[in-house]
């Protein structure tokens, strides 16, 4: 047995010992509390909208899971179950996906500023969606698929650009993100200029993040991807924790760095792609929520990734409720609301790092 191997084995033992029941219990409690908060948010926000619905009858219908109409009229019942609830569920899926993706990027790249929107990954997914709209307009399944491809390509581009001889410093990564973002933005502007008037209108609104176009077929897909993606990334949380020490240290501690990187890139791209295909570029969610999760729960990814997922869902549901009610019956793009909250926080974090 060589010296290095014995060192590696010893470290593994040390680490395994530190993975005690307290962490597990803390994770379970935090997840239970946040799941409760998410359910409460879904129910509360279902009672708010541009049309007034009687609260008690709505609650009755919600708790019957739509089996009973309770005292609601058919129109009110349709508003609640065909429009409001699907939109809230989509907001939850989008928020959870983006926050999880953000938390994983931040751990993998050891950079507090890594965020799908700021790194240009959302824009990559947007270009993918745009390609799908232009070339496969009729097929809605092409949208999440090409958004995923776009997100993955943008991720790889940023990663390659950011890695200099001195490794990927936070500044270099943000710079690479700016380059990719602006390049892809010009691609988007170029293509929208060539599109006809109707498509421009819908597309520009969509680019700012819009949850109103909930497709009945894509909603279950978005929810499934959000849940599976979060579970897969949370399962890699231990490796991500060690990666936060540095790639070489993580490698010495037995982490298959290359494999983890591929898993995070692919799964996070899938999360971002499915969100962007469903709702456009909702910015800053992947920045605000993981930071709040780490500030309140600590930087252990086994805890902060699931917490970010649940918190992100709550955050986007609330932001979208503001977007759809503030100037009702008109609507604002939800991305404008998340950016209004996220941009000041981004500046604050930038000053701290």
């Amino acid at each position, binding site marked *: 047995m060589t010296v290095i191997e014995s060192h590696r084995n010893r470290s593994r033992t040390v680490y395994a010992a530190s993975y005690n029941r307290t962490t597990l219990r803390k994770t379970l409690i935090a997840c239970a509390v946040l799941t409760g908060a998410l359910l409460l948010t879904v129910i509360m926000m279902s009672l708010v*909208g541009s049309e007034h619905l009687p609260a008690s009858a709505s609650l009755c219908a919600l708790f019957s899971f739509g089996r009973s109409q309770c005292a609601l009229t058919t129109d009110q019942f349709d508003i609640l179950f*065909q429009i409001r609830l699907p939109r809230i569920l989509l907001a939850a899926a989008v928020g959870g996906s983006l926050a999880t993706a953000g938390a994983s990027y931040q751990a993998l790249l050891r950079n507090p500023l890594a965020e799908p929107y700021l790194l240009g990954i959302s824009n990559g997914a947007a270009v993918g969606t745009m390609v799908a709209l232009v070339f496969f307009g009729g097929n809605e399944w092409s949208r999440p698929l090409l958004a995923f491809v776009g997100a993955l390509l943008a991720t790889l581009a940023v990663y390659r650009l950011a890695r200099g001889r001195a490794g990927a410093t936070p500044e270099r990564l943000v710079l690479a993100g700016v380059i990719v973002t602006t390049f892809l933005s010009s691609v988007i502007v170029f293509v929208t*200029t060539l599109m*006809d008037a*109707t498509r421009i*209108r819908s597309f520009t609104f*969509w680019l700012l993040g819009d949850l109103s176009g909930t497709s*009945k077929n894509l909603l279950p897909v978005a929810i499934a991807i959000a849940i599976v993606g979060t579970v897969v990334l949370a399962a890699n949380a231990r490796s991500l924790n060690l990666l936060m020490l540095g790639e070489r240290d993580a490698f010495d501690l037995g982490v298959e760095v290359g494999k983890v990187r591929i898993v995070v890139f692919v799964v996070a791209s899938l999360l971002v792609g499915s969100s962007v295909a469903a709702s456009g570029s909702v910015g800053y969610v992947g920045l605000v929520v993981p930071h709040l999760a780490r500030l309140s729960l600590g930087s252990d990814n086994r805890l902060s990734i699931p917490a970010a997922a649940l918190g992100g869902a709550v955050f986007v549901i609330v932001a979208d409720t503001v977007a759809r009610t503030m100037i009702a019956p*008109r609507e604002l793009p939800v991305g404008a609301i998340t950016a209004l909250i996220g941009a000041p926080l981004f500046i604050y974090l930038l000053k701290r790092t």
Partner: protein
Amino acid sequence: MCLILVLVFYLGCSGKHSAPETSPTVRDVTDDAGRRVVLPLRIDRVISLAPNLTEITFAIGAGDRLVGRTSYCNFPSEAKTVAEVGDTLHPNLERIIALRPQLVLISTASQLEVFTHQLESQNIPVFVTDPHDLEGVFRSIDQLGTILGQGNQAKQLVDHLRARTAAVAEALKQTRPVTVFYQLSAEPLYTAGHDAFVTDLIRRAGGRSVTAEVPGAWPKYSAESALAARPEAIVLPTGGSMGEGNSAVAEALQRSPAAIQGKVYKINDDLLVRPGPRAIDGLEEMARALHPDAFKQ
């Protein structure tokens, strides 16, 4: 000594300034934006930056003086032979200057107000029209008639259009207004608000737009409010400049009385959103769609 020199120089200068007071070669007009515009008496080179103004210019017999138009100006077919100066969102300033226009026409319907300043700084007179309703269309026709010296043709056109508008009103006298949802696009859901020209057109066609009081011209609209409005008819502007895209009813409206009873009407968007002479065609088509019985002879 110096002082006297300065004084003499000053007087000399001010004397020169007041010199060219000859017969008037220009005139003052006031546009819809309340701006005073100084124009030559005869205008031979006009650029239109709005499809409705291009249509009016041709309709009053001044189309041969049009030297520039936007890529959206697709009617009448003669308009397509006129040089393009970009679309209504991005007019090309260099090309406009190169065409040496004596006047550039702008409509607030094309949202090009900002461009006015750029043209003015190049000493190109700009006339802004701001039609919100059919009366605004008639005013625009009058104004262009005066400016382009086609007053008689403009008057004839307005009289003719007024007569057709009155005929529609007469036919609809006994009818009850139908509630209408104007679906500009399904996803995301856009409609016509208070400031949209088509809102007045719907009212005159015997309809009542359920979004008539929503602020703005083209608001993004809440799906649940659209559902709750239960419109009796849905108008889909499609098939014109907008392309064929907007031909399906939005999901939130699929169970509305309009959709269930098949009262969904596709009307060429160019007839509904352009405050020009063809808006009367749009008015007649919409009135016949909403109240077929009123037009049975």
